């Protein structure tokens, strides 16, 4: 009570000069009447006692009066500025106001009364209103040296109030913890909602469900809390305490963001140095986690944060903008750090797909930053994201190009047995097929690196013809062609390792067929390589087929077809004929023996081969047999030389390319 006593003394002393109407304006005259009617010392002291003990209706009535009076005084101050000789003096109301505000803060701070800011909106708005006057007074009074003591009182009260609000602000910002426990106890959280979507259906959602939606509790504020935060921020800003308010906000929100990111990334954060030492398997897991974290950050956390920021700092969009910008920058850069660390890791083929995943994630992040309508992201956030994306892209491109080296370095001297599909063909085609599922992303990646190369070259190194050619196809499809050409060249080389030219063709057919089938199975590769190229491959295959036919069956057909040598002096020579049959049987047996161990695993190709062989062999053999069979004696001789009936030939042809080395033996038994 010491305060109020001294106050009342003070008030009495000034009693007759309150609201001094130095200029006889109506306003100040009114102010005088009001203050005079109100100021008898005892009433005033009672008022204050009431104000301190019962911060209820009675005190707020008198607060309204005090505020009114202060407003008049402020107006009087404005009109006296010009005449410095006639300084106004502070009315009692100024002192009363400060005392009231003081006691209101005491009440707020009093743990027992449970009156915190936001519990009683009416009281809060009176408080804020009173504060506005205090802040105005502390600005205005500075112009009047004679009012120094009042000014001092005002600034002290203002500081105390701001300290209190600052504290309240922080408490509210971190209230999610207590709110969480409270809600759990009461099992009722109808007032909680996510800012981004005010109309969300699941207001009843409990903590668990919030987590399911990927919204961490630190990002969930009730509309009530948001409006309290907004009220405090507005009051602090208008009182000139924007710096403190912004600092409290940014420290608290950064902390919230950090814990949210920690949860997303799983409490682990690696230095670049660490990442270099990690094995690929755990890193793969980290990449998946990281991708989820970036997605959640750009889709949920950042938009949420921006809404919160805008809602709290609605009175100062510039503050809201820079506060969100700072948080967004810190969050995005932290996420980018991991991608940077990945860029520096040793490159290898199996990393391609994860790198492309990361590239896509960064691309989406970049576009969500770029598409932000309010332009609330600082420009360097977009720039950093673009840079790291470009790095990841370049890494992916270089991994892909490394396929060239894998192909070039695959130059073993041992041919694959039976002319089957080479493991390199399988590897390359499966890799390409998988890679082409990322066709659009790879197109972007290669367009980007292509652009960089051109930028570096200043364009001097490309002549016009090159450019024209380049404009027709995309950089990635050119890269793909390079790989395919290398593979073809490599297979060509490998085919030469076979001593038997027929087997070379079977090898080329097998591998070619495999490639064509893979391309048929992937519309992306087909599209990238173009129809012409695909048709060319089919015709190549047909050519191999023809070459094989000629190589293997040419001699046999010759043996059956050249009838000239069989006749001696116009008559069929039996010995020659017998020789011819014998040599046909030997040739055919030999081919059957060898080529039934060869492998054509593609069923269609296998049957095509058999059909085409039969198509030439059966008619040729039939006609040969039909014409010359008669010259051999029936019975023993004929059985000896005519080993096969045409049906047998067909059956035997159907045994070719089975990879079966025992078929001959089986038949003979």
């Amino acid at each position, binding site marked *: 009570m010491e305060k109020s006593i001294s106050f009342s003394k003070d008030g009495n002393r000034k009693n007759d000069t309150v609201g001094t109407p130095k200029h006889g304006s109506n306003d100040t005259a009114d102010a005088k009447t009001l203050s005079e009617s109100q100021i008898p010392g005892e009433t005033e002291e009672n008022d204050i006692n009431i104000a301190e003990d019962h911060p209820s209706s009675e005190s707020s009535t008198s607060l309204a009066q005090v505020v009114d009076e202060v407003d008049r005084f402020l107006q009087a101050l404005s009109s006296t500025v010009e005449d410095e000789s006639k300084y106004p003096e502070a009315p009692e109301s100024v002192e009363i106001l400060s005392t009231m505000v003081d006691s209101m803060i005491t009440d707020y701070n009093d743990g027992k009364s449970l009156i915190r800011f936001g519990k009683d909106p009416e009281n809060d708005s009176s408080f804020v209103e009173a504060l506005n006057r205090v802040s105005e007074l502390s600005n205005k009074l500075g112009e009047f040296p004679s009012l120094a003591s009042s000014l001092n009182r005002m600034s002290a009260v203002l500081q105390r109030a701001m300290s209190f609000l600052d504290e309240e602000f922080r408490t509210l910002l971190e209230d999610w913890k*207590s709110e969480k426990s409270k809600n759990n106890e009461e099992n009722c959280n109808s007032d909680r909602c996510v800012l981004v979507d005010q109309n969300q259906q699941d207001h009843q959602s409990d903590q668990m469900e919030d987590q399911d939606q990927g919204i961490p509790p630190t990002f969930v504020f009730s509309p009530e809390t948001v409006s309290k935060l907004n009220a405090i921020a507005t009051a602090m800003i208008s009182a000139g305490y924007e710096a403190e308010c912004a600092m409290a906000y940014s*420290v608290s929100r950064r902390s919230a963001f950090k814990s949210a990111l920690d949860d997303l990334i799983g409490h682990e954060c690696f230095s670049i140095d660490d990442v270099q030492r990690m094995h690929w398997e755990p890193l793969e897991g980290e990449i998946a986690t990281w991708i989820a974290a970036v997605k959640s950050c750009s889709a949920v956390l950042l938009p949420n944060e921006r809404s919160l920021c805008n809602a709290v700092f609605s009175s100062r969009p510039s503050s809201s903008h820079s506060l969100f910008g700072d948080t967004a920058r810190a969050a995005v850069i*932290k996420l980018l750090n991991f991608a940077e660390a990945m860029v520096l890791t040793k490159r290898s083929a199996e990393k391609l797909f994860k790198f492309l995943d990361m590239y896509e994630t960064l691309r989406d992040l970049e576009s969500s930053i770029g598409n932000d309508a309010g332009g609330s992201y600082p420009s360097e956030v977009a720039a950093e994201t673009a840079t790291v994306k470009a790095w990841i892209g370049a890494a992916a491109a270089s991994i892909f190009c490394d396929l060239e*080296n894998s192909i070039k370095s695959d130059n073993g001297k041992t041919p694959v047995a039976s002319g089957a599909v080479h493991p390199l063909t399988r590897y390359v085609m499966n890799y390409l097929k998988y890679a082409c599922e990322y066709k659009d992303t790879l197109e972007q990646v290669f367009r980007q690196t292509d652009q960089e190369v051109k930028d570096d070259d200043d364009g001097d190194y490309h002549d016009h013809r090159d450019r024209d050619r380049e404009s027709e196809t995309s950089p990635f499809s050119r890269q793909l062609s390079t790989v395919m050409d290398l593979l073809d060249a490599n297979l060509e080389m490998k085919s030469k390792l076979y001593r038997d030219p027929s087997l070379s063709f079977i090898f080329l057919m097998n591998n070619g067929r495999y490639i064509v089938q893979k391309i048929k199975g992937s519309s992306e590769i087909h599209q990238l390589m173009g129809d012409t190229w695909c048709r060319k491959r089919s015709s190549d295959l047909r050519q191999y087929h023809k070459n094989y036919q000629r190589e293997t069956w040419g001699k046999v057909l010759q043996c059956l077809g050249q009838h000239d040598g069989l006749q001696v002096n116009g008559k069929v020579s039996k010995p020659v004929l017998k020789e011819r049959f014998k040599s046909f049987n030997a040739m055919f047996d030999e081919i059957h023996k060898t080529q039934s161990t060869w492998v054509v695993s593609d069923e269609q190709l296998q049957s095509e081969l058999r059909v085409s062989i039969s198509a030439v062999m059966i008619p040729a053999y039939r006609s040969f047999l039909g014409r010359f069979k008669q010259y051999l004696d029936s019975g023993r001789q004929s059985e000896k030389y005519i080993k096969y009936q045409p049906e047998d030939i067909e059956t035997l042809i159907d045994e070719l390319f089975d990879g079966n080395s025992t078929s001959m033996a089986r038949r003979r038994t």
Partner: protein
Amino acid sequence: MRATENQGSFLNRISIRRNQVVSMDGNHEQELEDIELFQKHVADRFSNLLSPSSSSSAESPSDSILSIAWLRKLLDTFLCCEAEFKALLIIGREPSQVSKPPLDRLIPELLDRVVKALDVCNAVTHGVEAVRHCQKLAEIAVSALEQKPIGDGQVRRAKKALNSLIAAVAIEDRDGVGSKSTERAWSFGRRGGSACAGSKDRTAGQFRSLWWGMAKGWSAAKQIQAMSSNLVAPRGAESTGLAHPVYIMSTVVVFVMWALVAAIPCQERTGLVTHFPVPRQLGWAQPIISLQEKIAEEWKKKEKKCSAGVLEEMQRLERLAQSLIEFTDSFQCPAEAERLGEVAAQVAELAETCRRMEEGLVPLQQQIREVFHKVVRTRTEVLNVLDQVGKASTTPTI
């Protein structure tokens, strides 16, 4: 920007000269000349850092050693050296030369150091955030104490901010960042623990929120230690070849990162080495050795008196803050005119320091990023060269 220009012209010159000589047999001599030129440039650039008086007169100490402006020059210097080194190592060179001993060992070591430097860059970038935090607190004090007349309210407002600033500075220093016991002090003007339950948790979070970049347990001091551990000057025949510029570049990387860590608060600096051996007889090393001694001296002082980092502006903030806190402690309204005059001068100095920080910190941060980007790029380029060597040796041409 200066750095970039230098780089460009140097690269041009080098490449032109190499193109000219490549057909002749003067390659070796040319190389020796290039190495010598590189050494000279390194020496010149670091001597400029040693005596920053070239542009500024005595009354503007804004680029004195360990000031923000000086750090920016240091990074400029680094970028110049880095560009020149890269040119020397890569341009016009047979990849196989780079893979011969002792380079086959020295270059991977350098690259390893470079990766570690990237972590330091990240840590320091986050450290700049903390410095900005202090700057903002100082600005609050300035805006409060610039008001006239100064009353109780202004004084209390300033005091609160200044106390937070001192606490922020002291905490980083005494216990190293990340230590739990001192986190409270970072929080800005908290009430006593009784008034808000769980405040410890909160303040812990608040404190860490400024340092959320680095992995747990990461230590700037250890990182610098690891970077400098195998730094050995080439001897004998090695000292005339490419091994020498590789050593120079390693020393420059370690020195620059060390100076950044000393100047700017970052995660776990306790036990930061104050000395790494650079042979005194090497001419180019003289300015670096002198700078190292000066900075080490500052660092030791700092460790002794438990005060702010050795960033010039931070030291100034701390000194002014302490003095102004004394003023706020003894303040009674109205204040004596004489005292107010002194305070006004200090506030003006504080305001000027804040202005310099405002001007310099963001560009500094951007420059650290630039260093990061450049270093990553060079590493990739060097690795590409090494890759070519690897392929050439394992893959016979088809």
